[in-house]
């Protein structure tokens, strides 16, 4: 049975392994250089306090590779579910070969156990190798990324650490189960893709924020959470508040960020002008004709201090970066349980219902 499983999987397994070896080699060759560039840059920027500029420059130089690799790790579990999971049973049903193989002297349960075990292990290995290699390679970039691309950011989180292994195991068993229910290969593949994509969107949006109770905090305004202040002619002062960063917690995953006034009420949006997508604009009733926030004085730091003095604060809820590994384990655990549930179901179905 092990031989048959290997015989049927070996083509795609060999190809996957080859691609992974190429990827891992490329990362192993370029990783040390990336790390040393980072180390040199840090050494140079720390004394004169220009590290924010260094981070921006360093990240911008490698952002294409960073994004591409992140995307690869996100896509691998889907591919595994699509090309290994969905056809596993449906291809046999479609070709009628289940009638051949399920009538050798091996029960269906055993057949499925060996298939799920070996192919599932291969799927997890592929995603795990890919995920851990990219995590290692990206470490310097993860430390210099803009808040939207930090390790805890929804897109990046799923492409780091051990989570990809959990996703791959789940996607694989999901594919197998869908294949059993749908019984035809192409519809099973399409349905697996749709279902997996929907789950991968729903988890970061609806589930992950609640894995632990988020921390709330109120912060003074400053360089880390303000993306600028503007004073349009004759209008009120515009404050561009970042929605994905809080001061003192670099790399935190910010769930909500708003501007409140001295009495704790949220400040409204003003005349509807907009800034960069990573900010919200709030109108603060401060004189823009004279004082620290007049056009002449805006270039200095006085205006921010004036807004802080008037009691304006950023109120935010967030998950600090220290929660990265706890979140990785919890989320992998959840996917592990889902995988187990689908596995139990598929064994029950192949014994009782499928013919």
């Amino acid at each position: 049975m092990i031989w048959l499983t290997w015989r049927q999987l070996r083509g795609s397994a060999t190809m996957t392994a080859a691609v992974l070896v190429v990827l891992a080699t490329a990362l192993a060759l370029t990783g040390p250089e990336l790390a040393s560039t980072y180390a040199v840059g840090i050494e140079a920027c720390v004394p004169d306090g220009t590290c924010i500029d260094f981070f921006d420059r360093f990240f911008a130089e490698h952002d294409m590779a960073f994004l591409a690799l992140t995307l690869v790790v996100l896509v691998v579990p889907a591919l595994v579910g699509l090309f290994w999971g969905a056809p596993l049973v449906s291809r046999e049903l479609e070709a009628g070969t289940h009638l051949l193989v399920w009538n050798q002297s091996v029960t269906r349960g055993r057949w499925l156990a060996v298939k799920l075990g070996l192919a599932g292990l291969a799927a997890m290995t592929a995603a795990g190798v890919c995920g851990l290699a990219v995590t290692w390679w990206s470490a310097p970039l993860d430390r210099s990324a803009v808040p939207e691309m930090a390790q805890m950011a929804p897109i990046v989180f799923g492409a780091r650490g051990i989570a990809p292994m959990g996703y791959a195991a789940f996607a694989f068993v999901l594919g197998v189960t869908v294949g059993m229910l749908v019984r035809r290969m192409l519809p099973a593949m399409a349905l697996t893709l749709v279902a997996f994509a929907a789950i991968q969107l729903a988890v970061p949006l609806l589930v992950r924020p609640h894995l632990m109770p988020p921390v709330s905090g109120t912060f003074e305004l400053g360089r880390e959470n303000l993306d600028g202040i503007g004073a349009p002619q004759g209008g009120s002062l515009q404050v561009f508040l970042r929605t994905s960063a809080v001061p003192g917690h670099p790399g935190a995953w910010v769930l909500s960020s708003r501007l409140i006034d001295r009495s704790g009420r949220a400040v409204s949006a003003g005349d509807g002008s907009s800034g960069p997508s990573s900010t919200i604009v709030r109108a603060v009733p401060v004189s823009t004709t004279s004082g620290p926030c007049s056009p002449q004085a805006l270039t200095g730091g006085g205006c921010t201090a004036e807004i802080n003095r008037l009691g304006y604060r950023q109120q935010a809820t967030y998950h600090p970066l220290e929660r990265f590994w706890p979140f990785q384990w919890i989320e992998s655990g959840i996917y592990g349980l889902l995988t187990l549930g689908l596995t139990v179901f598929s064994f029950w179905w192949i014994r009782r219902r499928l013919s």
Partner: protein
Amino acid sequence: MTSVLQAQALGKKYGRRWALRDCTIDIPAGRVVGLVGPNGAGKTTLLKLAAGQLEPTSGAVTVLGGRPGHEPAQLAKVGFVAQGTPVYNTLTVADHLRIGARLNPRWDAPLALERVERLGLARGQQAGRLSGGQRAQLALTLGLAKRPELLILDEPVASLDPLARRAFLQELTQAAAEHALSVLLSSHLVSDLEQICDYVIVLAGSRVQVAGEVGRLLAGHPPLGLEDLVLAYMDGSAVAEVRR
């Protein structure tokens, strides 16, 4: 006399339609049993139930004293070659023999090799590139070399030319005699079965019309040949007095 297959009020429903209902038969061991009936009569359903590929909706079926398909020991005793003789298109002939060898405790490797050689199946050839007849022969080889006590064949000769058809049926008769093998095969061509069967079951409209030894059936209707008799039973015009 021991039974190879016993069914009591066996029925199978797909959705709201009964593919087979109220099927009660008792097939003695050591026979070559022909299952005949028009398309859609329930032949495949009965064979799949016997092989353990389907679970009955009602009634029960016992094959060689056990419940079909649930344990390796039971699976090893019953061979099944499905309709259309499915094989793995991307695997070679040798791969298929290896599947048989790896997955069956009583695999008869010399028999499989001899058969494949005799029929001119190149061992390195992918099964998908074989002709329809060759693919059928490969699937039949797997069924025979498994060395079951009961071999179930669903329309096994449908894609064989008349010569290969006759040769295979002869081979089957031989194997039955040599290895005390019971055979249950379906066909809608009575002429195929006439050659080798000593027991016949006629299915029509999801029900068993008649089941019994060919000799006794013919003796009950002196002027009729097997073909006419079977056709008469399919029609429902014959009296089911031989039914048991």
